[in-house]
């Protein structure tokens, strides 16, 4: 079978204060990443970026970004992520760094990882809770996050999926 294989980089934007996260747009990330790839890898990097890279998903509340690139050049894009120091959005500069959590071959594998990761983060938050009410909230959140939505989709497409699930741990 001949088709374009891609790699999805699941990244997290880490900022010192969470309120500045709300203003993020996927165009901001795209432009910043393009400038970083141009600086780090020159004209060759810019050309590769133009062909295959697109920001697929951005969650302004949690700071999760999903970047898609071609399978042959994802390491180049990945290496340029470390050179991003600030995101500029309409004249305001936000100091940040991008942390890559997971590399997946499809959006579904990234989604599965994200559910597991969020549950681990909630577990980590539990000892830090000050009041009982907060603890109840966190426990309820942990119990409610589940893979049931993802499992339904899997049952539908059982056996007919030969996706290249390149699950690499960072």
């Amino acid at each position: 079978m001949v088709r374009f294989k891609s790699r999805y980089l699941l990244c997290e934007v880490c900022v010192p204060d969470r309120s500045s996260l709300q203003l993020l747009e996927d165009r901001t990330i795209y432009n910043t990443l393009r400038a970083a790839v141009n600086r780090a890898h020159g004209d060759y990097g810019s050309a590769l970026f133009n062909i295959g890279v697109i920001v697929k998903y951005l969650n302004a509340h949690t700071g999760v970004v999903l970047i898609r690139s071609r399978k042959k050049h994802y390491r180049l894009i990945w290496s340029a992520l470390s050179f991003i120091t600030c995101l500029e959005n309409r004249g305001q500069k936000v100091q940040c760094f991008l942390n890559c959590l997971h590399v997946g071959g499809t959006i579904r594998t990234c989604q599965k990882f994200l559910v597991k990761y969020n549950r681990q983060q909630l577990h980590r938050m539990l000892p830090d809770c000050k009041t009982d009410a907060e603890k109840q909230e966190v426990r309820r959140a942990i119990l409610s996050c589940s893979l049931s939505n993802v499992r339904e989709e899997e049952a539908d497409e059982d056996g007919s999926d030969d996706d290249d699930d390149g699950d690499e741990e960072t």
Partner: protein
Amino acid sequence: MEEPSKFERYVYKNDSVYHYMKISLVLENGNKYITDAQFKQLITCGLKDLYGEVGASFPFDLLKFDQNELTGILRVYNSGLVKLWSALTLLGSYQNEACAFRVMQVSPFLLALSGNSRELQFGDQLTL
């Protein structure tokens, strides 16, 4: 009676870690005064334009430089040969003046660069 000497043959499949390139710089308006440091700086600028910071940091050495002819011998690791060669090809200007790099010889062994049948000049002794 001496024993017949054993026949041994060594075959190297590209044993060399480096590649050596003999290049020359051709300027549009004749030769300028260029030191070896400026020559290397020019090549590094070309690498930086095409391959960015990561490409410009790739190590290569200028082994010999002839200031009158503006020719030199570069040494680069095997993995960087394609990048260096492509950057040399696409380098177009030096201090706002058109220039070009001509690559005369490329070889994994330095000894091969010492003789070049293209530049061989027959002396008068041969016309007998």
